[in-house]
């Protein structure tokens, strides 16, 4: 009996990795693709579009899902039918370059602003050190020392 259990266990260990990957791969869903592609008619993300062409686009995606295609395969098929603009990523040419450049410039500007504010704050702190009270005269200083001694003693 123990031998049989061992054989079953060994067989399971050998066969499990050989199972088809598709069994472990989650099936592509419409919402998963919809938010990464555009409605080509209205220029908005497909998941918020109600245009007639958007319905056809969704039908196309559903048909691709039925065929067992992955998200990337479906996006490639969409790009083949509708051109690269269907993918919800800006192109790397023309005015669309601004989509990459503006956030980078704003990031640099924000960094510069933080650095400038930090330097300014530090300079202000150096110019205006921790404030001290008025100098004690000799008599007051002696009395303070005596009182401190008495307090410690």
């Amino acid at each position, binding site marked *: 009996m123990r031998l049989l259990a061992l054989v079953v266990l060994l067989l399971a260990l050998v066969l499990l990795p050989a199972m088809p990957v598709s069994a472990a791969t989650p099936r592509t869903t419409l919402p998963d693709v919809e938010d990464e592609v555009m409605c080509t008619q209205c220029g908005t993300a497909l998941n918020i579009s109600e245009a007639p062409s958007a319905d056809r686009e969704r039908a196309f995606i559903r048909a691709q899902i039925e065929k067992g295609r992955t998200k990337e395969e479906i996006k490639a098929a969409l790009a083949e039918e509708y051109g690269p603009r269907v993918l919800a990523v800006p192109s790397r040419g023309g005015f669309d370059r*601004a989509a990459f450049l503006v956030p980078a410039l704003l990031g640099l500007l924000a960094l510069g*602003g933080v650095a400038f504010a930090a330097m300014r704050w530090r300079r202000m702190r150096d110019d205006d050190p921790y404030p001290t009270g008025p100098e004690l005269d000799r008599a007051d200083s002696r009395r303070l020392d005596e009182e401190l001694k008495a307090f410690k003693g």
Partner: protein
Amino acid sequence: MGKGPAAVVVVLAAALVGLLSYGVAQRGEDRSIDAAVAGGERIAPPSAEQKLGLLGSPERTRSLADFRGKVVVLNFWASWCKPCVDELPLLQRTQERLATQNAMVLGVNLRDVSSDALGFVRRFKLTYPSLRDPDAELARAYGTVGYPETFVIDREGRIAAKRRGPVTQAWLDETLPELLAERA
């Protein structure tokens, strides 16, 4: 804030506003064809040399320039656009009339799934070709904003008439005879 950093912020804000204005201007509607045609002028069509795949045979490409010498009724359409589909039978009848007069209908199918478009080609037994303009690049060059839109190209390859919206038999009858009578 000192004068230096304030100036940098002002310059950057101005640059951003400029960039946005440029983007809006670039994506605005181009109505130069309308203005020219309304003034009785005939102008060269945009992107006439641009090669596009044929609907149903994407490996075979054609440009509008390939049809020079013919009167071409250039119709932008999509299968999801009901008015576009409604006018397909009229365009097919027009094609049958034009075929013997060195003229033709040329469809430009845009933003469409090719199998959907081919379904209508079969359903209405369309005999004229359609070019595929997947992301409407050619349509944008013509300033199209809604569909269908139709342009008539004369034998010299110039835009002679345009119809933004569905064509009618009356419009075709009014527009085509004069152009068909012209010699290349």
